[in-house]
């Protein structure tokens, strides 16, 4: 099976306010189609790890591979391109662009990638919205829909460029149990039906237990 994401000997230090070793020798792999969750107490460094894996944080030691290619030390613009094409993001807070419509929000990463025509992108975006059951919201403003709907729009946006992996930072942390379950089912379905890899940081034990694998973190290292 193909390895989508691999971390080798990741170490990170915070220098302010005092020197602090946040991540110690992190090594792990995520295979294609795998649904992995990262658990751990607050402050154990799981979000920090996720932002390093997402290529947004470049201040670390060690090596990071995406689709078996080294991405550590790449230029920022190149990393932006990698994020755009290969990584989808879902955050705890929904982070849609409030002034744009739902459809425009979903189309944005694909427009940035500019590999397809606007008409194709629009078609793809509607398709993703249909998969998530919210195609009726397409023309609404992003600021005018409910929290659960926003999170689904965010997932649709993460999917638009058919990424290699989707990363989530507490994607259900701000949702009630009904919507949480909904989001989990969507993730599960994507992983099983489309062979998408997922890496999700969560506090929610029920959510984590249903995933393929749990990475347990404590004090900056992987416990199990």
């Amino acid at each position, binding site marked *: 099976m193909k390895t989508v994401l691999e971390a080798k000997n990741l170490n990170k230090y915070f220098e302010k306010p005092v020197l602090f070793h946040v991540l110690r020798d992190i090594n792990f792999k995520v295979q294609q189609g795998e649904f992995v969750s990262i658990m751990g107490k607050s402050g154990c460094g799981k*979000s920090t790890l996720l*932002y390093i894996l*997402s290529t*947004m*944080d470049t201040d670390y030691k060690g090596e990071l591979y995406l689709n078996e290619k080294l991405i550590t030390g790449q230029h*920022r*613009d190149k990393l*932006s*391109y990698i*994020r*755009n*094409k290969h990584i989808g*993001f879902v*955050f*705890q*807070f929904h*982070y*849609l*662009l*409030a*002034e*744009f419509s739902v459809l425009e929000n979903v189309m*944005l*990463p694909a*427009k*940035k*990638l*500019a590999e397809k025509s606007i008409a194709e992108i629009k078609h793809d975006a509607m398709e993703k919205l249909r998969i998530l059951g919210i195609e009726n919201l397409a023309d609404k403003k992003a600021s005018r829909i409910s929290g659960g709907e926003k999170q689904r729009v965010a997932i649709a*946006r993460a999917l638009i460029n058919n990424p290699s992996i989707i990363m989530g*930072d507490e994607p259900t942390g701000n949702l009630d149990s009904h919507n949480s379950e909904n989001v989990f089912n969507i993730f599960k379905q994507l992983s099983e039906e489309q062979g998408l890899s997922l890496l999700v940081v969560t506090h929610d034990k029920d959510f984590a237990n249903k995933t393929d694998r749990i990475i347990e973190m404590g004090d900056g290292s992987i416990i199990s």
Partner: protein
Amino acid sequence: MINWKLILGIAKTHLITKIKQTSIAALGVTFGIGSYITLVSFMTGLNGMLDGLILNQTPHVHVFNEIEPSEKQPVAIYKEFENAFNIVHSIKPKQNQRKIHNALPIIQHLNNDKLVKGALPQIKTQIFYIAGSIEIGGNLTGIDVLKEASLFNFKDYITQGTAESLHNSDNGILLGAGIADKMSLKLGDRVQISTIQGDIFPLKIVGIYQSGIADLDNIQSFANIKTVQRILGEPENYITDINVKLYDIDNAIPLAKKIEQQFNLTAIDINTANAQFETGTNIRNLITYAVSLTLLIVAGFGIYNILNMLIYEKMNDIAILKAIGFSGKDVQMIFMTQAIIIGLVGGILGLILGYILSSVIDKIPFQTEALPTIATYPINFSPWFYVIGISFAMISTFLAGSLPSLKAKKIDPVHIIRGQ
């Protein structure tokens, strides 16, 4: 690679959703540019008028025979006193004729010069205006009135009568407005003048001359060259002055030097004669640009402020854009584009505002005794001001936008997303 269509789309959405702030920022530029255009058009219009008042009537090179002492006294030429220390007391001006020797060939020579627009002969002489037993001192200048009219805007200063009527009359005179007032004379009356020699001639007033400079109008009158030659009892080649008008005023100094050397005459160029006008013009321009620049800097701070606020409001959006694959440069361009759109829209509106305001000023009546030819405030509608204005707008918004945009470029998305 930057996807401009996408960047423009996002910038446009930002601007439209914040239409109030956007319009205020753009209005700042509009007022800045508008007042610059108005100010500079009005100021240079006024400058042009004031300069024209003097410079239009002033020849670019004035050639005449100066009454002056010889540069070298005869004793200095005498070989036997070569090494001696000579003292000459009470030096007198050299005995010289007032007329320019060979004036007509010189005029012809100058008229053939490619740089010269025209060279006109004049005869200047002192006369007395006689009113009963009172004699008033004055100047009479013999001119070729039609050529003066075409080269030196002479017609602008004839308030009554016409240049043609002087040209057509054998014993006509264009009387200075001041003299006419003093002697209660009007168009069609006769005035007696007396030469220094004491010969009295009656002349018919065919026009009134008013330059706007009172001292001049109180003494100066004009007649045809032939009339003056006849009054003075001089032949047709008697010319005391030659006035030269050039195509390019910058050639005045070299031409004046050349004439002095070539013909052994005195030639004064316009820059030497009227140096203070240049200075006045420069200082007025300086003030205009200083005021306009201040206005634009204030407008620039407005734009800076509003973009800065916008970026604080859009922190989350910036973070999300970066997270989904927009590079720092893309984000920078989004905000830069907004600044440029504000500058362009504000600037163009400013040009329109400036044009409207200066057109209004151009219609305001402005009549003054000193300036007989001016009916409304003068405005200089030079397209250059509009080019400079829009460039100013673009440069100042570019500078004002670049700092906040750079900040947006440098925002760390992790910092924002984790900070929630």
